[in-house]
């Protein structure tokens, strides 16, 4: 193995991934990820026919055949859905499997006379691709690089030129159509693009992995950004990264496990890496990942627990009641329902934030803590007063409602509440509403 050989494989992989990322992103945001699957299978009879007619694997015939059968499958899916009264997913399953089988039949039937291998179409042969070279402007390059580069260029250019049309018709096809951009034709244009992409990629990585590269990088990109143009950029970058990492993993990982000299399918490993990247993003993506959401939930729960503890101390103090540590913590456990582990964290945070401390055996609010607690209780009692005047919630039930609302009441909302409630000094239970100057 030379650097050249591995370098070419990685380059081919990156080209394939970048090629797929462009139509794949549009398919995924249109909720048509499976259409990528359908098209990638449905182009097979077109490829076979194109090959039969031209007798070579590099001709424009194969692209033409694939584009025609890809669009035909898309149209047919629509017709089966409408006329056969079959749900769209089932219509897709019906059409693309029959196209694929037809393609397989054509290939197997003619396998004796021509050099097109069903396995190659299914799984690709990226390891062999660098060996089959042509001379391009004096440089020897793998033959598959040429169609891949052309398709990538076409994909990128078309997306740049028709970005606005693709965006509008993907988001709101009725609006696009009402503005004179026939959404149906944009849809079929995208199908042609997908079909051409599939053909260019099949020889390198096969049909199954093409589907992975169409869907997984855009799906991952959507976890990382919420702007379409960045979805496209991320999808290309993630696909490229998966291709590079995939090949490196393919030649190293089996060696770690089974001992030296072994390697596995690079294309297969590339698809595995796209999925790994997706899992990592789904888990760790800022904002939308599982971790980020769990972290946000915990942070909110912690804040609410601290606020509840402050509120409790304030109310005990107000009634001149005992703030003995045991009593307070019992109340926090039973009434506010703070679990023992969170309680320890709350205690630590109160102490660290200098909001409250344990003096001897009793909890004491600090001045800062009292000021914060008083504004919370103020929000709480303003809500109770507001709700009592404007809803049919019985007075005994006001507390629970206000308890939830006080945690999401910012200063602006308090000011609006003050304006609504008027110069009220007591809440419906007869408790004084703390003065607002304690804010400062």
């Amino acid at each position: 193995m030379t650097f050249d050989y591995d370098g070419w494989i990685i380059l081919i992989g990156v080209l394939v991934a970048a090629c797929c990322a462009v139509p794949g992103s549009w398919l995924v945001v249109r909720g048509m990820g499976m259409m990528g699957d359908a098209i990638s299978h449905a182009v097979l009879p077109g490829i076979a026919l194109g090959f039969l007619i031209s007798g070579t694997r590099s001709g424009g015939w194969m692209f033409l055949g694939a584009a025609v059968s890809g669009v035909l499958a898309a149209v047919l899916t629509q017709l089966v859905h409408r006329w056969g009264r079959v749900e769209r997913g089932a219509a897709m399953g019906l059409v693309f499997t029959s196209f694929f089988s037809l393609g397989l039949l054509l290939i197997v039937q003619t396998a004796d006379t021509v050099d097109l291998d069903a396995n190659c179409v299914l799984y690709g042969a990226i390891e062999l691709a660098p060996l089959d070279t042509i001379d391009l402007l004096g440089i020897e390059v793998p033959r598959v690089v040429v169609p891949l580069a052309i398709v990538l260029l076409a994909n990128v250019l078309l997306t740049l030129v028709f970005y606005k049309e693709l965006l509008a018709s993907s988001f709101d096809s009725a609006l696009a159509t009402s503005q004179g951009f026939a959404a149906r034709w944009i849809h079929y244009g995208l199908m042609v693009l997908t079909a051409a992409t599939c053909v260019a990629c099949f020889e390198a990585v096969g049909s199954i992995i093409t589907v992975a590269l169409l869907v997984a990088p855009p799906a991952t990109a959507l976890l990382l950004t919420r702007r379409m143009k960045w979805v496209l950029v991320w999808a290309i970058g993630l696909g490229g990264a998966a291709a590079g990492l995939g090949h490196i993993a393919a030649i190293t990982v089996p060696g770690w496990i089974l001992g030296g000299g072994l390697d596995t399918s690079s294309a297969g490993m590339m698809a595995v890496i796209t999925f790994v990247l997706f899992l990592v993003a789904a888990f760790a993506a800022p904002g939308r990942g599982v971790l980020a959401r769990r972290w946000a939930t915990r942070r909110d729960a912690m804040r609410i627990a601290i606020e509840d503890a402050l509120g409790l101390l304030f109310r005990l103090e107000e009634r001149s009641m005992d703030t003995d540590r045991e009593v307070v913590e019992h109340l926090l456990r039973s009434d506010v329902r703070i679990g023992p582990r969170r309680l320890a964290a709350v205690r630590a945070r109160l102490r660290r934030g200098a909001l409250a401390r344990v003096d001897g055996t009793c909890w004491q609010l600090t001045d800062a803590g009292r000021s914060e607690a008083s504004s919370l209780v103020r929000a709480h009692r303003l809500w109770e007063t507001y709700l009592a005047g404007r809803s049919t919630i019985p007075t005994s039930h006001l507390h629970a409602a206000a308890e939830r609302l006080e945690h999401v009441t910012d200063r602006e909302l308090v000011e609006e509440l003050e304006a609504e409630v008027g110069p009220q000094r007591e809440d419906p239970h007869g408790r004084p509403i703390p003065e607002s100057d304690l804010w400062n």
Partner: protein
Amino acid sequence: MPSKTAAEGILRGPEHDPTAALSIHDLTVAYDRRPVLWDVDLDVPPGCLAAIVGPNGAGKSTLIKACLDLLPRVSGDVRMFGSPWRQVRSRVAYVPQRETVDWDFPVSVLDVVAMGTYGRLGWLRWVGKTQKQAAMSALERVGLTEYAHRQISQLSGGQQQRVFLARALVQDADLYLMDEPFASVDAATEQAIIEVLRTLRGDGATVVVVHHDLQTVAEYFEHIILLNMRVVASGPMDSTLTAEHLRATYGGRLTLLEQAATALGRLSQPK
């Protein structure tokens, strides 16, 4: 060619006003041969707020979509300002129902509003500064300036509806066709929307709205179309919104017609 116009006038019947903002003649729309709109015939005068009301399944949304060629017609002719829709496309803005789009789509509020400018831009041209400024000022008109750079999924239902309204405003049209712009919005949003519609009317535009609330229809609109598969009545609010017309629209009078429609749907015509 005056002779041609005259001939068209004869074919389209004398009752149609050539100055009407929206003029529908003999429109029939069917899903799978089952008619949902029968021989719809109506005129909406220019510069007014018009409501389309009727029970569920009356074909209100279908009527708007058929006007814009979003659904195939069985028969009929639709004119806007005397011309077919395709010739006056840039003068017409459409507001679809909010539920028809995926609000999780990766675009910002500003992106969505800027889509209103696409029609004027035409093919192959990118959104530039001018379009973004137009979108910003439309957002200002619906009170959503501060949300311009938010992702659209972060908006409430009422805010989403206002984004759609802003997108229509950007189109700077003469005829607005709006499908349920008041559906599930709060009272404040409803007021904000109706204020915008009144301003549009003040500027000479015509607004046709699918409306579901009979309580407010007389207050908001001055022209009404009562629809239940066919046009029960269409005309100025005062003379058209009568108890008899409402009964005919919402009452059970049309069951025979519905039965016939179902039968037509089942009919297997050799084609």
